């Protein structure tokens, strides 16, 4: 099987229970699924969500219709549904609890600043409602267009625009408190 087959061609094989095609799809997109899950639900749940999403790709492969959108859009939607669902569970752990253990190695100052900024953004993101977080992750992190992101979230383009506007405004407000104009965190 050639590695250059499109996602949609591989999905057609997955629908007839081809496990090799499934493996190729998972290898291609697992990191993407985990990244999105981590942005929306937090680090602790991300790997589980990635696996669960691909299990759904396998069990629901026959409901995928290439005429109605790309495989990645369908995958994003599965990941978002799972991530939002987990996030709403009462016993979830806040995103800050799952912070990575700081390395004891000495780091260049630039890396420390970048790390601090990343933490600031993560903290600001975790305070947003999950749908706003998803909007930012799809548009800014995954680089989807407004139309594609709206399709992945299953909402209208207008509704997506509104979500993104509110999310960016909230984040900007949070970041401006901690990251001054020179880009250094306070």
């Amino acid at each position: 099987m050639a590695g250059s087959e499109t996602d949609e061609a591989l999905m057609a094989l997955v629908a007839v229970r081809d496990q090799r095609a499934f493996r190729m799809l998972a290898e291609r997109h697992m990191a993407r699924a985990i990244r999105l899950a981590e942005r929306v639900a937090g680090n602790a749940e991300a790997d589980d969500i990635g696996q669960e999403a691909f299990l759904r790709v396998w069990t629901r492969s026959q409901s995928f219709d290439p005429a109605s959108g790309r495989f990645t859009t369908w995958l994003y939607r599965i990941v978002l549904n799972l991530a939002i669902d987990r996030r709403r569970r009462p016993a979830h752990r806040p995103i800050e609890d799952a912070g990575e253990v700081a390395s004891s190695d000495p780091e260049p100052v630039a890396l420390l600043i970048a790390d601090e900024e990343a933490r600031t953004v993560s903290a600001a993101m975790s305070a947003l409602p999950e749908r706003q977080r998803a909007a930012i992750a799809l548009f800014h992190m995954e680089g989807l267009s407004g139309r594609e992101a709206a399709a992945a979230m299953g909402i209208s383009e207008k509704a997506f625009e509104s979500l993104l506007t509110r999310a960016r405004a909230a984040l900007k407000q949070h970041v401006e408190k901690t990251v001054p104009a020179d880009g250094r965190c306070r």
Partner: protein
Amino acid sequence: MTLEQFRKLAGTWGGDLGRWPPAEQNAARALAATQQGMAILEDARRLDALMAAPPDVSPERARHAVHAVVLRVAAEAERGTRRRWDFPGWFVPAMSVACSALIGISLAMALPSGEAQEPMVLGMILDSGSMAADWSLQ
């Protein structure tokens, strides 16, 4: 397009004009060339960069997740195959009774009837050819 509209659009879509809705891009270009426009876009780009940074997912972490899900799918597929050969609880006893009945019927039809034929019948059943005809000879 007014500067306020421009600012609002940058607040939604960020500092890269190429990612704005196509219908707005042409009108926005003239404003983007002004000093105020440039400052608005620069400010938006700073926020874009912070939001675009993805969480770090190492190749090993992704590989581990792929391996785990592939195993789960293989197990699922095997369960599905086994399920195809699973018979309902009543099936085996019912088939045993049916097979016994079939053997009985075919034996009854194959064997000759009547008392006179008894030794021959026994011979057919016990394959008497393999036994000595007269035990006293041994």
